[in-house]
């Protein structure tokens, strides 16, 4: 006997309450399934986007590294390090969480900084700075996508667990409990019926003797 079955009293009231609760759980389950579908759809979309962005990032990074290596070779390490040292290095990002079916996923926006985007500061590093700046933006994009995917995947597995639990444990338990109460009630009704019949027969027999 399941835990729920053991806990409920086999009464009509309990049966009605259980049936009502089962309908409610089924409704919630439908909602969760809908949420799961939406999350899975979004996840598929993000994974596709991520594959494209990763390829783009690899390409951009390779261009950026090649430009930086070229700069190192052309002007020397001392010159490049000296210029790089002057960069304030403080990158600013705006993080705004977005709500998707109750899951908060991060939306990160890079705040443009003069030191990174200025085409001529200094003139020698124009190309590497531009390429690295692009790579940085791309890596932030990929980072945000990865974070989104992670959040969605965690949420999806939670929803999946809930749906499975409802489908395979909770609803069957309710069904069992309902079936148990129904059977009990039926038995009680039969007993009642036989008792009534027996009493009726005894009364009839007594009346016939008289």
């Amino acid at each position, binding site marked *: 006997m399941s835990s729920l079955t053991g806990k409920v009293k086999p009464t009509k009231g309990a049966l009605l309450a259980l049936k009502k609760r089962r309908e409610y759980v089924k409704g919630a389950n439908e909602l969760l399934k809908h949420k799961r579908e939406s999350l899975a759809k979004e996840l598929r979309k993000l994974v596709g986007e991520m594959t494209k962005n990763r390829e783009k990032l690899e390409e951009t990074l390779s261009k950026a590294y090649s430009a930086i290596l070229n700069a190192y070779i052309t002007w020397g390490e001392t010159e490049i390090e*000296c210029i790089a040292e*002057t960069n304030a290095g403080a990158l600013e990002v705006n993080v705004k969480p977005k709500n998707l079916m109750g899951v908060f996923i991060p939306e990160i926006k890079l705040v443009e900084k003069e030191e990174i985007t200025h085409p001529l500061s200094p003139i020698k590093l124009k190309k590497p700075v531009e390429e690295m700046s692009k790579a940085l933006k791309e890596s932030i994009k990929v980072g945000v996508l990865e974070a989104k995917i992670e959040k969605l995947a965690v949420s999806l597995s939670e929803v999946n667990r809930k749906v499975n639990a409802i489908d395979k444990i909770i609803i069957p338990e309710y069904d069992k409990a309902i079936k148990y109460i129904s059977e009990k009630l039926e038995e009680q009704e039969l007993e009642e019926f036989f008792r009534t019949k027996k009493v009726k027969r005894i009364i009839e027999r007594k009346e016939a003797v008289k």
Partner: protein
Amino acid sequence: MSEEYTYHRAHGLKTRLLTREDYQKLLQTKTLEEVIDYLIKINYDEELSKLPREELTVPRIEKVLMQNWVNHVYLLYSTATVGELRNLIYSYARVFEVENLKKIILWKAKRKPFRKEDLQYLIPIPRRLATINFEALAKTRDLKQLIDYLELTIYGENLKNALEKYEETKQVLFFEKALEESYREVMFKTTLRLSGTEKELTERYYKTRFILKNLMVIFVLKSAGYTQKEIRELIIPFRGDELLKKVLKAKTTQESLKILSSAKYWKMMETAAEEYEKTREIGFIEDTVTRALENLAIELMEKDYFGIGFLFGYLILKEIEIQNLVKIINSKARGLSVKEKIIF
């Protein structure tokens, strides 16, 4: 000692420049270690063998190379007892100061404190060749104090004007322009005291240098979408150079390419500009500028084999040698090939 002695020393130093064979051997090396070994075997033994191997990192070797270049200039300066020639070499040596000032100003413009250890980024200039105490300059509070400190030097006036423009635009290129302009003025003033071939060749040397520098800046700024007026403000002022005027006026890069291709001397710039259009790597234009300077060096040396032409030719070739070695050590340290970038 006389003027002739200095020219004689320049001839002597010229024989110590790396040969084609040296470059080929250096390009064949596979590691930085092998490059160091080869450099110790040839002309850089004095500086490199003094240092323990573990200290021979890329920046350290770069510093040694720079030191070597400065030492050669200083050697020529100290052998020149004749006023005009001594002045000329002294003026030429401002190029080191200009490079150091560019760095310190960039740091101050970005509000980064220049610490004692950051002095390693500067070219070490012998005291007798320097007009500025860089250590004191590095300690200045901000850009304004730094420019006030330089007020009475040859850079003062131009830097003051640049500061006003910088405050409006935040464009560091104004300082680079001011420093280059000051260098050009010094060279111009020194040339005024010369006459004949000496004057003609010295003018040819520094004018070509500035035209090439301007050309490079024009190209980059044009492709970055700067207007003619904005570019004119950011390049070293020039007078009478029709080619530069035309290139500056050209509406598109294609148009400027056409102008360049029509000029005999600048023909080589065409390929570089095309490469730049494709890749946006300023290195292509800089390499071509170096090639043009190498041509100039050869021309100056041929024209005046026992005079100032040879001296300038040698100084240009030494500068190119240092640039080449910087490229080689950086590429070998990163396991890359650099053949096409070496000019010899």
